[in-house]
């Protein structure tokens, strides 16, 4: 039991996590490249043309994985924030900080590709659909988190303040989602519902899964690389950073 615990605490210190993060990052990069290349090949050359939407539907292979990732990453960030607030470990907050830009980017990609899909399908770049609206709000939550972090100079204060914000936000996300959904169904506004393809072709599903895993690996790779930078930025005056040789940095 105790060996587990010690291990845990060992890697919760930035100094010992720093080299480990590099290894994880390298491995994930390889996985991400492989999966995304396979995924792209399948998206364009294996998956059949959709009988209703023609070639346009191929957008789904980036749109849906990006949407999933954006939601998933926010929850993960909140988890790290909770850990950080409870156990007062610096590394947890750094992990949350490192994930945020990637999550925001996926939210943006989801909205962007969604728009580029909606235009040919519905004839407009934007509709106030429940899912789209709540993704937009999620993007705002990401931006709020990042803006708060950027506005606070003292990193430790920033850790704790933005941690509180993340926890408050994650409590609200489901509430927001259901309220938006309710709001939208009560107005019979948007004429076209999004999930009009109930049965999905097997290959399409597999392709989408592969792309999702690829994005997942990408997110891990980038977050680990970023957490290394964050660690350096914040611990630059500590003795262990000064002790690093040029190769280790």
């Amino acid at each position: 039991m105790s060996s587990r615990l010690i291990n845990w605490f060992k890697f919760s210190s930035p100094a010992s996590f720093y080299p480990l993060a590099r290894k994880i990052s390298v491995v994930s990069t390889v996985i991400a490249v492989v999966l995304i290349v396979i995924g792209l090949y399948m998206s364009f050359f294996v998956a059949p043309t959709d009988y209703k939407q023609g070639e346009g539907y191929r957008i789904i292979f980036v749109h849906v994985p990006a949407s999933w990732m954006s939601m998933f990453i926010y929850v993960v960030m909140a988890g790290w924030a909770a850990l950080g607030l409870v156990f007062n470990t610096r590394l947890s907050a750094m992990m949350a900080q490192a994930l945020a830009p990637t999550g925001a980017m996926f939210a943006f990609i989801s909205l962007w590709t969604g728009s580029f899909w909606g235009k040919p399908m519905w004839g407009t770049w934007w509709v106030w659909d429940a899912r789209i609206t709540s993704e937009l709000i999620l993007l705002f939550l990401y931006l709020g988190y990042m803006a708060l972090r950027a506005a606070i100079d003292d990193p430790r204060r920033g850790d704790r303040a933005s941690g509180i914000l993340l926890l408050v936000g994650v409590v609200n996300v489901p509430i927001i989602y259901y309220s938006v959904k309710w709001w939208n169904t009560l107005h019979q506004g948007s004429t076209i519902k999004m999930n009009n393809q109930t049965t999905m072709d097997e290959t399409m599903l597999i392709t989408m899964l592969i792309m999702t895993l690829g994005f997942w690996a990408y997110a891990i790779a980038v977050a680990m690389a970023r957490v290394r930078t964050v660690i350096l930025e914040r611990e630059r005056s500590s003795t262990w950073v000064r002790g690093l040789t040029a190769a280790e940095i």
Partner: protein
Amino acid sequence: MAEFFHMGGYGLYVWGSFGVTALCMIAEPLLLRGRSASIRKRIARIARLDQEAQS
């Protein structure tokens, strides 16, 4: 080939989506590299100053 890029009339939308996604996912690591390079430079400078102070 041209037909591939045409995407059955949806070329703009498909490539607009995949293109921007690719752009984002390439730009992010590049920006990150810039950020990490600048902090490394700063640490190198701190180390140099340390050495100067000692000698």
